[in-house]
């Protein structure tokens, strides 16, 4: 449990870790302890999964037993549905850490006559909570009762009593609710649960699905107000808390080569800082991929694991083309030092790409990561979305002191005016621009360092050529 002082509050508001990776950063500690939180969203947005994960992680990571009261899915269905996520509900139930109670309310089987209350639900919940000493409770989706009970007046007053009772019981509760057309939930549950309300959203734009999460309210606590993208993968839900990143990673003074001798010479230090992020921009045909591959090759030669994301060329195409300029990546690929991940950006949404990048980094543990080019991600997201994703990636790279090399395609002319590049360039430590120009009826190429944090560098554009031996400075040869 994390105690966070709420602004303008005299008592500290205690918070319970949600078990949803990233969410606790957004909520500054988790869900309000001992109070109900409403999770609302349309069908398929991940509400039930949120609830299950809240309980399962509560048990596994914080040793807090939990009760899941399901009004929609049977115990068996629920268990099967989350099995693929590696949530062992059966096992946890056998260990008496978890209790699942399926409440079936079928209107056709029930007659109503005269006065009644919903004490039966209270008794079942109370019994379930007490039998395992539960600290966490999920009610999924209690609104189903509206379909099963005729007397809505009784139901409403009983729900009010139920939430009050749960508060007194001191359990941290997640209540799921179906998104309504005018209100947050169909039955206006937000009226009863006012401590914390989280909205899950699932939308499809340009045929690519994205999931987003927003904290609608959080009484007595500060919280992030943005919409945060979130992922559902085989590990469950994880939120990407873009704005909560802190700049506190340690840095290296070690200098490494870019893999291109003439590029190294642009810096007084003879190379770039280890663990820094390089951005390479240029219009079509300015040898961006060659530079990127040289960087990857240099990394392999230092015996560093290298991960290369190729968004425009297939693995074989990349290997063949680089071979033609004397960059032999195949041996390193075979030795396992290099991994080339070649995939079309439009294959999946941005969040999935981010997940794939982070996952591969987790798995492969590279010391160098190349993304060639980041501009193709723009085909599946807006500039600000791509930027958000890259911030996340760069943050991860920085924390792990991984060398990063990003290329970005720009329009012909100077890339300094390109809005895409501007959005991303502030994230990079080093920015090198490549340009084509025509001199004396010959196509020439130039490279120029636009910025290099913490190192002095050459200001003038330097001409370069691509030969069968890679990128070289053509000038000495002219003499």
């Amino acid at each position, binding site marked *: 449990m994390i105690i966070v002082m709420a602004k303008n509050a005299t008592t500290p508001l205690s918070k319970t870790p949600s078990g949803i990776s990233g969410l606790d950063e957004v909520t500054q500690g988790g869900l309000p302890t001992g109070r109900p939180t409403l999770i609302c969203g349309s069908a398929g947005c991940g509400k039930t999964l949120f609830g299950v994960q809240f309980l399962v992680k509560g048990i596994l990571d914080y040793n807090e037993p939990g009760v899941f009261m399901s009004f929609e899915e049977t115990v068996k269905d629920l268990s099967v549905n989350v099995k693929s996520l590696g949530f062992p509900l059966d096992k946890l139930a056998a260990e008496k850490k978890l209790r699942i109670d399926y409440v*079936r309310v079928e209107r056709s089987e029930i007659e*109503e006559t005269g006065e*009644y*209350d919903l004490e039966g639900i209270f008794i*079942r919940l109370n019994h379930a909570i007490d039998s395992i000493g539960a600290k966490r409770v999920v009610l999924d989706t209690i609104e189903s009762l509206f379909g099963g009970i005729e007397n809505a007046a009784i139901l409403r007053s009983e729900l009010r009593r139920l939430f009050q009772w749960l508060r007194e019981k001191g359990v941290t509760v997640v209540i799921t609710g179906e998104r309504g057309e005018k209100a947050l939930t169909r039955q206006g549950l937000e009226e009863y649960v006012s401590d914390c309300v989280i909205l899950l959203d699932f939308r499809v734009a340009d045929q690519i699905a994205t999931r987003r999460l927003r904290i609608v309210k959080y009484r007595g606590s500060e919280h992030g107000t943005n919409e945060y993208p979130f992922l559902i993968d085989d590990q469950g839900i994880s939120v990407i808390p873009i704005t909560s990143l802190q700049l506190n990673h340690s840095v290296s003074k070690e200098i490494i080569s870019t893999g291109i001798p003439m590029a190294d010479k642009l810096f007084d230090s003879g190379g770039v800082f280890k663990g820094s992020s390089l951005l390479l921009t240029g219009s079509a045909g300015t040898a961006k991929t060659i530079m990127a591959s040289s960087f990857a090759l240099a990394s392999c030669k230092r015996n560093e694991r290298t991960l290369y994301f190729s968004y425009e060329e297939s693995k074989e195409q990349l290997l063949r083309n680089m071979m033609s300029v004397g960059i032999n990546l195949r041996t390193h690929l075979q030795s396992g030092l290099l991994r080339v991940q070649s995939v079309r950006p439009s294959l999946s949404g941005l969040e999935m790409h981010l997940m794939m990048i982070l996952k591969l980094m987790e798995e492969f543990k590279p010391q160098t990561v190349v993304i060639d080019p980041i501009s193709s991600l723009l085909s599946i997201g807006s500039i600000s979305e791509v930027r958000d994703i890259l911030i996340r990636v760069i943050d991860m790279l920085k924390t792990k002191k991984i060398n990063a090399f990003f290329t970005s395609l720009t329009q012909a002319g100077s890339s300094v005016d390109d809005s895409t590049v501007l959005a991303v360039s502030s994230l990079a430590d080093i920015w090198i621009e490549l340009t084509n120009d025509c001199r004396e009826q010959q196509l020439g190429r130039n490279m120029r360092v636009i910025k290099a944090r913490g190192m002095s560098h050459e200001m003038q554009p330097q001409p370069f050529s691509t030969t069968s031996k890679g990128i070289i400075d053509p000038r000495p040869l002219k003499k």
Partner: protein
Amino acid sequence: MVKEMTYELRLYIAGQTPKSVTALNNITKYCEEFLKGKYKIEIIDLLETPQLAEGDQIFAIPTLVRKVPEPIRKIIGDLSDKEKVLVGLNIRKV
């Protein structure tokens, strides 16, 4: 020989609340009137045996469950509407 049909009923309550007492009085009255000698009423107080609530899917109190004859029927409330209770339990008037 015609087999005598018997009714096995269960009344779920949570303590001696007015609603539960009314329900018990009502069902006893109807049974005496229409099922005399052919019925059993078992009273389950969930305050004493909360673990029994799950089995019969009890959520409302009081709830009357007709266990026999099958299929199981449920009536929630204080059973004050005699007609509805008789129809709900499928008891034919004599």
